[in-house]
């Protein structure tokens, strides 16, 4: 068979293809950012939820838990924990940590005050309202 296979063509395909698909990705990103408000119309990002997000980040909650399936797989999914357990359970649970049951996985005590606990709950309420296209498959996350 006769065929040519040149470096210059391969190089042009690399540059052209990369630019082409990156521009397409930017286009889809633009569409996504424009579609988000209506897609997540139910999710209310309140000031308390924003403060709760900062608490989530600065206590490294994602170092053990998943949130919408992303994070670590040591503790349960918390994106829908507001629905699964309710606000009072969440606050009571965090106050009672650690359990100190020998051999069990331990969650640290973060010494959050009542206002901060409410912020965490507001954040978890917000995450439970995000339109995740029906993920997770059931309430257990």
């Amino acid at each position, binding site marked *: *068979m*006769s*065929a*040519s*296979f*040149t*470096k*210059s*063509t*391969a190089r042009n*395909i690399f540059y*052209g*293809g990369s630019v*082409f698909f990156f521009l*397409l990705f930017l286009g889809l990103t633009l*569409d996504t950012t*424009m*579609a988000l408000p*209506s*897609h997540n119309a139910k999710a209310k990002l309140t000031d308390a939820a924003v403060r709760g997000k900062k608490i989530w980040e600065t206590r490294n909650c994602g170092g053990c838990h998943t949130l919408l399936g992303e994070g670590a797989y040591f503790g349960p999914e918390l994106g829908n924990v507001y629905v699964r357990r309710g606000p009072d359970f969440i606050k009571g649970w965090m106050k009672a940590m650690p359990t100190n049951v020998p051999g069990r996985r331990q969650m640290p005590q973060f010494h959050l005050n009542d206002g901060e606990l409410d912020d965490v709950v507001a954040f978890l309420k917000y995450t439970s309202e995000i339109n995740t296209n029906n993920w997770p498959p059931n309430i257990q996350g």
Partner: protein
Amino acid sequence: MRTDSLPMEDIPHDRHVPGDLAMWCFILAELAVFGVFFLVYGYHRWRDPALFSHGQQQLHLLLPTLNTLLLLAGSAAIVAAVRAFALNRQRSGRRWLMSTMLAGGGFLVLKAIELGGKFAAGITLSSGDFWMFYLSLTVFHFLHVVLGMVIVAAVWWQARDGRYAGATIDGVETAAAYWHMVDLVWIVLFALIYVAR
């Protein structure tokens, strides 16, 4: 440059890869992407035929039919261009390349009118399964026509400097192969989205 092209090239009726092998790898990858896209479309249509028929009823056939004719004309012109360059008829070859670009330009204009109407009607990627596939496939293909025009334009530019005079016409064949791929995908797309309803 062509370090691993095999000998035996002078044997008549030898199997010949039209254009650069790297481009054919790219073409096969593109066909794979479109192919999987079509199969996923088929799966969704099979699950909810009513939704898709209803969407298809709202598409007019005039513009896409004209567009099919334009793309086919572009393909025909680039075949003529390859033959012209193979016979070392430079002026004629360049003219045929220009014809391909004109046909492609016409396609882009008509397609922009069609898509503009859809956008004006408030249709987006989130307007349900049918419109999601309609927009994804047609816009994705539209961008491929743009890329095809860029490639043909680059070849046309090089042809002006006599790049394809006498020695090798690989570049023309490579561009032609890509253009035909874009055409081939559109042939399936046209039948699938617009006509088969």
